[in-house]
């Protein structure tokens, strides 16, 4: 391959190919592969689902079935930051709904939505295991606890 063509190969493609090669022939590889593919692409485009199917020798229909069953998998692009607001029991009784309301207002999106500037994707989850600090939310891997509606703005501002 000449230098010019080399630059044209999407590094994501290379990573996906490596990923598929690494898992080829392993039992139960589909979900870990989809998880890692989603890490690479930020979501699971239809083409990636097809390539995963081919790479693991699994019918695309089954790949699609799995990708739509689990809440973690996203078939549409996600924002740069994923914001998961907890509405589990502990957060519910300590006013999680008010926090969610404020966030929805600030971002102008509802559960599952992504802001126009691609900054945030909002999801509602039931418990992130930090119930002692209820109400809570998680932005990417970072937990924020002891939330009140007026703390929300300041926290969101920390994420680009």
């Amino acid at each position, binding site marked *: 391959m000449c230098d010019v063509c080399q630059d044209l190969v999407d590094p994501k493609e290379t990573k996906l190919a490596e990923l598929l090669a690494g898992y080829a022939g392993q*039992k*139960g*590889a*589909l*979900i*870990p592969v*989809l*998880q890692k593919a989603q890490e690479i692409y930020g979501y699971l485009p239809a083409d990636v689902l097809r390539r995963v199917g081919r790479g693991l020798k*699994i019918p695309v229909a*089954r790949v699609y*079935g*799995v990708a739509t*069953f*689990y*809440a*973690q*998998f996203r078939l549409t692009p996600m924002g740069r930051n994923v914001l*998961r607001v*907890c509405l*589990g*029991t*502990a*957060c*519910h*009784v*300590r006013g999680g709904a008010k926090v969610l309301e404020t966030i929805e207002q600030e971002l102008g999106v509802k559960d599952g939505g992504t802001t126009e500037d691609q900054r945030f994707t909002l999801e509602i*989850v*039931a*418990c*992130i*295991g*930090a*119930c*002692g*600090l*209820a109400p*809570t939310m*998680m932005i990417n*891997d*970072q*937990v*924020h*606890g*002891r939330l009140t509606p007026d703390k929300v703005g300041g926290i969101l501002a920390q994420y680009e």
Partner: protein
Amino acid sequence: METMKTLLDPCCERCTHTPETPCRDYIRCLTAGPLCHDDPGCRAKRSGLLAELRPTQGSEEGQQILVCAGTGCASSGAHKVVSALEGELQRQGLDSEVKVVATGCHGFCEQGPTLIIEPAHTVYTLVKQGDVAEIVQKEFKEKQRVENLLYQDPLTGQSAATFANIRFFAQQTRVVLGNCGFINPERIEEYIAHDGYQGIAKALQEMSSDQVIEEVKASGLRGRGGAGFPTGLKWSFCRQSAGEKKYIICNADEGDPGAFMDRGVLEGDPHAVIEGMLIGAYAIGADEGYVYCRAEYPLAIKHMEIAIRQAEAAGLLGNNILDSGFNFHLSIRAGAGAFVCGEETALMASIEGKRGMPKVRPPFPAQSGLWGKPTNINNVETWANVPHILRRGAAWYAQYGTEKSKGTKIFALTGKVNNTGLVEVPMGMSLRKIIFDIGGGIQNGKKFKAVQIGGPSGGCLPDEMLDLPVDYDTLTRAGAMVGSGGLVVMDETTCMVDIARFFLNFSQSESCGKCTPCREGTKRMWEILDRITKGEGKEEDLDTLEHLAHVVKETSLCGLGQNAPNPVLSTLKYFRDEFEAHIRDKTCPAHVCAALLTYTIDAEKCKKCGLCARACPAACISGDKKTPYVIDTEKCIKCGTCLDTCKFGAVVRA
């Protein structure tokens, strides 16, 4: 030969242990060795390292600052405290004497970041970066406590210097949580220094597989994942199954909202889970295992990954473990966000890479589980109990608990209670003691209304039931269940109809959809409850609800559907009057259900400041400097903003 840097390094070239050439005495040798040769130098090296890992009170050796860096404390700034401590120790020239150790969760997250000074055991809570200089100076230079930074009891205002004096901890019996918060979970030698891997060493050296099963049976341990099935018996089924290839699984899906004990154990003491699984695998005859952990717990997954790698490097996972001929390989699978995957057959489908849908049992996993092979699945906390049973014996274990529910259980106490956190107590303690003594009662002097136990499969119990001993059978009889051990406390401001609706919403959206009663039944029940909270309930609704609840319970395929009606049935049983108030009087006694509330302004109290009118999103408050403000109840959207805004308590919600 270079000197031993960590406890796991060979003391000299006479130590032959490696994963490829394992020594059967390896574990005992690390803490009491050397065993194969006698050398005072080697002995001194080991005891020196051990002293650092196990600080004893009064000694200068092993001075440590334990900082909780679990999920909760990390979110409250623990990592900043760690760097501040390291900087400060250096500034004060103490960095070679005092170590900073990042630990897992103590289960006291609300008071985090938490810091413990060893060997003095002093505890500091809610520590800020700015407190660090004073703590280091006083504790290590002047050997004094910083009185004004100690934990203060929210009720009595008294300060407490050690866990033993903090009400929340004083009445707990911490067995499974014993190491959590006291060791660095990212270092296997810390677990080994605290008696770790002695249970598996004993099993491999002194016991047959059947003897291990008998020991676990005798301990009375029952599954901590929900159903409370006797663990030893479960193991024996899988052991008796025909077939060479068997699997074991650790269920770390922890989907019950309000439960976080499994996260605590995985983050704080991951090797205990590995050791429990090793013992189980040996007893059952399995050579491969999986930890299935929910993706929402990234730190737990990370600690588990590190632990597995370190156990492999030490020869405690892999082939011919401790020269016994026993092989065991362990890997992690991250869940992908489906509550139903906590159900054992759905979980196995998920590991196989399929949609996580439950299957009909029989065949039970013990006969045909993962990839059709005999499989034994246990919960995180169940596995973490096992090393204690092997090391200290079934009789020791069985001294805790009630006749039919042995040992300790971890509860996650949350909601409207003063002290929230992980509470480990012997089975059989009363709910009242847990909520009022350990939990310190209800926040803000409010009145207790209910405790929700067991998550979406459990029930809500009222004050009259609080003296029940918490064990599997008693709670099931009362219409709740131990479940995973989540205890969410509710006060007079919680509406029980709203809670019933909340749980149904959860079960309804998590139902996998395979069977109709669960998929449709929970939805219809939710619709009725939703109607009731909107003031559109009908007299016959409660009978319909009960009828539907029984149908869903009896005809659903898996535990999700079978237990989904429990929160509704128990609230109907104990809080029927609240349902009736919603239906008949169109009122919500707890003032929660928005549609049933009215907001008005008390003209006497109104100071005519106009704040509420400016804040009201519906622009339905009018008045001026001379006339008291009034709310146009027709236009009011019942958002409650005015109530929160008024500084004079003039807004009335009824």
